Structures are given as C-alpha cells and as structure tokens.
C-alpha cells in the first residue's frame, strides 16, 4: 500500500486512486447488467396476477433504455448527480441511498469503532499480562468467537435476548410510527441497535483483540522497551506510549481493509434483524433486479471504501514516522 505510493509521490498516488475509481465506476455499471433475469421476471413471474400488455411494453422500454444507455451516458449521469430512478421503489436512487445510509453508518460505524477500541485495549492489557489466567481465558474465548460467523451469533442473540428473555426487539431500527421524540426516540434507537450491534461487535472483536495482542507481544520484547523502562516510565506509559503505539499499526491497517468487507458482512445482520440499512436495500434491489438502485449502491459503497483507504494512506504515514520519508 505504501511503498509504491511513496516512490511515486502524491500525484502518482492520486492517479492510482483515480484509476481505481474509474474501474469501480465501470464495474458498478457493468456487473448489475450481467445478472440473469430482469425486473419484470422478478416482479411478475410468481405473481397471482399477470401484467397487462401495455404495462409490459412500458416496463420493457424502460429497461431497454437503461441497457442501451452506454457507459459514457452513465458517467455523465453520475457526475451530474442524476443517478436515475429506482424501478421498484419509483423514487430517485439518490434519495433511497441517503435514507438508508445513516442507519448503516450507525450500525457499522459503531460496531467497527467499538470493536476496534475494545479489541485494542483488551489485546494490549492481555499481552501485558501474558500467561496469566485472564490472558489465557481471553485468548481462548476470542479464538472460539473468531470461529463463529455473524449468522450464528446473531441467531443466538436473537433467541436468547429477544425470543426467550424478550429484552430487545427482534426487528427494525426503531419502533415504527411511535410517538417518541427527543431522548425517548434516542433510547428507542439504542434499544433496537443493541442486538445487531452486539452481533457485529462479537464478530469484529476477536480479530482486533488477537491482532493487538500479537503486535503488543512483539513490541514488549523490543529493545526500546528496555530503554523506556530504564528511563523510569510508569507501566501505563510503557504500555501505551511505547509498546502499544507500535502494536496499533496493524490494527489501523485492519480497520481500513475491513471496511471494504463491512457492507457485505453487514448484509447478513441487516437481513436477520430487518435493519433498514444499505445492506437490506441492496438485497431488495438485487432480488427485484432494480438495476439503477444496484448500480447506485455498489458505486456509493465502493467509492466510500476507496476514499477511506486514501485517508488511511495518510493516517498511516502520520502514525509511522518511518513512512514519512
């Protein structure tokens, strides 16, 4: 990620990212069009009712217009922010994406951030107490958790906390059509967030924990730690200012790399808890072969991942003085 970009400098880096963005634009245009089946088949094939010929013609024309509009037209639409209308929802794609995006950001952002923070600090503390009972327990527990997919932990949490105990709601991001305002609404959103967030937290935590712990173990034994100790630094300072800072680098790398797979991983959880985020929207769009909506979501998420990776390039250079050359 870094070696090539350093040698090319900022213009090279920007050019590489621009090229990647263009490739993503093309993929978001091309891939949904390769899906077998079309909107009409998805909507009407198993229906109790059949489509009148006039409507069939109108839908077909609409679909043909979409397909015959080439990549240049697609690019033009993208840059003029005209992302088309969803065939199924009959609303502008942009509006649909921006309605669903905040929920996905809330769920994924909080899960990712929380698991990284908790995983990092727990990993550092565990490594510092290497061989102790909490460390051994922590490693065992995290290794087990690492092997449980989201669908497994999600169903388990749902069964225990929603089905058996009835503590948390099983679906949605908030109580639909409630009269809640202000704090009550905030708590309602948190109440609905608890289980999907818990599921994703359990899925992301072990990786962060194990990575931080491994990095920390390597850092603790480095010669500079002896110097830090000799200088009379407190154990907390030794841990966090000297050792953990070095253990942080792989965690930050992971943070960025994992972002790319976040959306696809959240699909399961969003579907399980009927969470109205981008994952659910994409699932619906694919099932209905809603080409403009699929393209829109794929494009927005992939460009977002690309932007975050670019930001991380700079963050990495800040964190690691060796890369500032």
């Amino acid at each position: 990620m870094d070696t090539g970009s350093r040698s090319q400098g900022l213009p090279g880096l920007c050019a590489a990212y621009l090229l990647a963005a263009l490739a993503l634009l093309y993929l978001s245009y091309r891939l949904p069009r390769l899906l077998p089946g079309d909107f009409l088949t998805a909507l009407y094939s198993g229906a109790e009712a059949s489509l009148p010929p006039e409507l069939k013609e109108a839908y077909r024309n609409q679909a043909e217009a979409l397909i015959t509009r080439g990549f240049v037209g697609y690019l033009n639409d993208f840059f003029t922010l005209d992302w088309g209308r969803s065939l199924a929802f009959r609303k502008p794609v942009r509006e649909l994406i921006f309605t669903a995006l905040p929920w996905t950001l809330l769920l994924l952002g909080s899960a990712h951030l929380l698991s990284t923070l908790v995983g990092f600090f727990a990993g550092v503390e565990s490594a510092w107490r290497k061989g102790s009972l909490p460390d051994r327990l922590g490693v065992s527990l995290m290794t087990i958790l690492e092997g449980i997919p989201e669908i497994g932990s999600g169903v388990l949490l749902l069964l225990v906390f929603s089905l058996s105990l009835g503590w948390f709601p099983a679906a949605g991001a908030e109580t639909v059509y409630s009269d809640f305002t202000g704090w009550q609404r905030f708590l309602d959103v948190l109440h609905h967030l608890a289980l999907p967030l818990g599921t994703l937290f359990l899925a992301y935590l072990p990786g962060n924990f194990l990575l931080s712990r491994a990095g920390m173990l390597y850092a603790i034994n480095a010669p500079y730690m002896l110097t830090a100790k000799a200088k009379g630094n407190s154990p907390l300072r030794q841990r966090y200012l000297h050792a953990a800072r070095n253990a942080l680098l792989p965690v930050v790398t992971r943070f960025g790399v994992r972002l790319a797979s976040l959306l696809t991983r959240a699909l399961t959880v969003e579907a399980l808890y009927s969470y109205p985020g981008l994952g659910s929207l994409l699932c619906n769009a694919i099932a209905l072969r809603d080409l403009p909506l699929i393209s829109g979501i794929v494009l927005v998420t992939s460009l977002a991942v690309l932007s975050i990776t670019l930001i991380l390039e700079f963050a990495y250079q800040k964190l690691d003085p060796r890369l500032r050359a």
Partner: protein
Amino acid sequence: MTNTVHRFLCLLTGLLMLLCTVFETSSPVLAASGRIKELRIADSRGDWGPPTPYQHYPRGPGYLRAAWIFDTLIWKDHNGLVPALAESWSFDPSAMRYIFKLNPRARWHDGRPVTSSDVAFTIEYFKKHPSSWCKPQWISAAQTPDERTVIITLAEPYAPFLETIAGVMPILPRHIWERVSDPQNFMAPEAFIGSGPYMFKDFDRTRGSYLYEAFDGYYQGRPLADRLIYLRAGASLPALLSKEADLADIQPDMAAAAKQRGLVVIKNEHGWNKKLMLNHTREPLNSKIFRQALAYALDQEEIIAKAHRGFGLPASYGLLSVDHDLYNPAIPSYPHDTQKARQLIESLGYERDEEGFYAKNGQPLHLELLASAVSLGGQNASDRDGEVVKKQFEEAGIRIKLVAMEQTAADSLIKNWQFDLAVSGHGGLTGDPAGLNEYILPEEGADNVNSARFGANAELTTLLREQIREMDPEKRKQMIFAVQELYAEELPAISLYYPEFTAAYAPEKGVAWFYTKGGVSGRGIPLPQNKMALIPR
C-alpha cells in the same frame, strides 16, 4: 484496570436494564375508550409497493395492503362471499347480468357518498387502464338506473364473475380518478382515497412499513383498531413475543413454542402447492409415459419428511387442492414405485448402463434440476426439496444435475424454457377453478413461470376454456372433475406437496384473525389478513 473494566461493565448493564424497563411498557394494548389503540402486522419483506390499486406489487401481500383502503363490491369471510360496498346482489341468467344494490351509508374517505356512477366509472377505467389484478374484459356494459343500483351485463357467460371481478376490483372514486390519465404514476395524496375501513397515512419504502388510521365513517362500522401498522420483521416469532407485532406468519415447527407462550396459532387449508415444473417441449419430457415414470419415481411423503420435518401434505396430481369443494378423488395417482418407474422408462427404449443409469442409443439420460428458494405466499423460504428429488430420480436410474440458484435467475430460465426440471410453487388452489387456466394454459400463463403452459392435449385445453363459461354449477363441476383427471394423466407438471401455512397472533388485543376459505379475494391469497376480522359484528 480491573476496576475500570468492572465500572464499564456495570455501566453497560445499567444502560441495558434502563432500555429494557423504558420499553417494557411502551406499547399500550387498549386505548382509554376500550378500543384497540394499535395493531401491528409483520412480514419478512415489508415493502409491497404503494397501496393503490395500480401501484402495489402484483402479489397477494401487495393487494391486501391496498385492500384496507379500497373496498370492492363484495368480499369474503369465513363462510364465503359477503356484502361489501354492495349490500345485496342478484343474477339474471336470461339477460346475463348482475344487479348490485349499493350500501347507502358508503362514503369515500373525503366524505363524499359512494354512488353507482363510481362503480360504472371504475369498470370503464379498468377496461381502459387494466391493472395486473383487474381486467374486467368480460363486462360489456354497466348501467346506473339510480344512485344505488348498478346493473352489470356480461359480454359472454363468465362463471367466476363474483369471485374474480366483483370480489377483486377495487372501486375508485370517480371525482378523483376521472382526471387521472396515467394511473401507474398517480401518487398524489388523493390516490389513496378509498371507501375501505382504513385511511392511508404513510408508507416508508426503505423501512418497509405502512400506517393506516381507522375511518370513522366506514359504512360497516368503525373498525376495531384505531391504527393499523405493517412492519418488516425477518424473525417473526421473536417479533410476536417481544410485542413488536400482533400478527405474523410463523414456521409450522414454531407453532408449539408459540402456543406455549400464549399466542393463538392458526393453520390454513392446503391452497398452495410446491410442484415440479417439467419442460414438456423437449425430449424425453415431451413423452407422457416419461412424465408418468417421473411421478412414480417421486416419493411425496419422503420429501415432506426429509425437507420439511413432516410439515406438509402430499398433493393431488390433478392440481386442484384436496381441500377444494370440486376436488376429484378418482383421478390417476402415482404411488411411489421405483420398479414401475423403471419399467416405463425402459418401455421408451432406454437401457441401464453398468452404473445403473439409463441411456438410449449411447446418449445418457441426464436431466438438469433447477432449485431455488421459492417465495412461499410472498415470503422467501429455502428448503431441501431439490436434493430429495434428485436422490429419488437417481434411484430410478435418471442422472440429475442439481443446480441451485437465486429465484429470479431460475425464473428467467423457466420463462424461456431453458430448463429440464425445476422446483417451483404457487397458490390459488382452493379458489375459483378459473385459476386452473392460468396455471395450465399456454396463453393465460405466458408471464407466469409457475404455469405449465401446456396445450398438447386438445380435450384438456377445450375443457379449461369452456369451464369458465359454464354458468350451471353442476355442469361446471363435472367439467372440473374431467380437467383434474386429464391433468393427472398428462402431468404437464407434477404437484409435490402442500406446505403448512401457519400464523400466530396475540389474543390480548381481542381480534380473532382467520384464514379465509379459498384465500382472501378471488385470487386465493393464503394470508390471514382479512379485513373482516376488524369489522365490528
């Protein structure tokens, strides 16, 4: 550090407990007046399109979401057809016309009276702008001798008129729709004004939720619940138990757990079948003998036991449900018999190779079987039908390549006849037998991937076309009996089993939800959301 962790855990537990207590009592059951304040219905998909007659998705759940707002001339309850906007009706066979008397108390949600001119206008409007659910092409004229009387004359005899037109066609307010030339894109607030028990308030596409409010001026009395809400919930039983939903479909094997937790569980009749689609346009499936051999090779009971944990009932080979009043029990049947299947295959010139699989003239008998998560009554459900069917066919010596794919991809192949065998399914088997035409005839099932689109047996085709024109119930019954017999002999598709449809609801709200015999509306929708459950008696 241990203290910090301890404090953090205490804080987290405290917050969770606070959340739980705050929301434990947040859903009041009844309003101060003793009326039901709110009813919540959950399903796994949520979005079924805007609830107008032209914009809901063409599936049962979409139609029902619009049906709360738009009433029809007649409707169905437990026992069959009941008055709706028409308080009475009669048929004059000599003039081939129906006379409907409208309920004088019927009002639109904007307060105007519902009159016969609205009904006549609706018929003309649907003729001009057919919707996926309503094509009143059988009607030649609608007269309105007075404000309350509509006389509908049929262009030619049409036996299922009451069930599939009068009981399905939503009546539109003339004063609104007469100005609308593009109903597919009519989304103004007036588009949601109907004469049904509930008024439209909101529809959220991304959240998959709908909100309705009781219509005070409803001609059959104010409906029982003040607000009606649809929400999306993938896990239906937890949604019911955590009181987020009051009614939802559940898996049949959850019925015991639901009952144990105080929910009322209801079961539907067998109006929906899983079936094996056969590409009868290509060899060897174009041979009736071969199709019969497949039926012998199949073991319906084993599919139910292995793929559905025993929840289901073997289907009739005559397509119409065993629960239908016109079901013919004396039709050809194919009890599982691998030996018989082999004999029939061998009678077509096939010989077994050293591995026990059939081949003819050096060409192995090799078929592809498409399997997908077929949506069941509008909800996606995956199963292992494909695997069990493959095993059974291979035991009879037919090599099967099982191809599992997503439903729309499979539908697309079936629609274009690019398949050999496919597991598919549909409902409507307890409704009016007019539905048989859509699932058998090539011209009527052109868009429907669940239709056999079979025209090779002229007698069957003629009978189907004529049964809908036969106004004498006894004569029609004989024709439907003959149709089932011919269908079971030809086997253009093989019905496998009827899955169990189960729903659960919370009894404390005081609403007794029910499954409608023959399904809701004339299209046989196998869902328990019949609006009659909320009409005061």
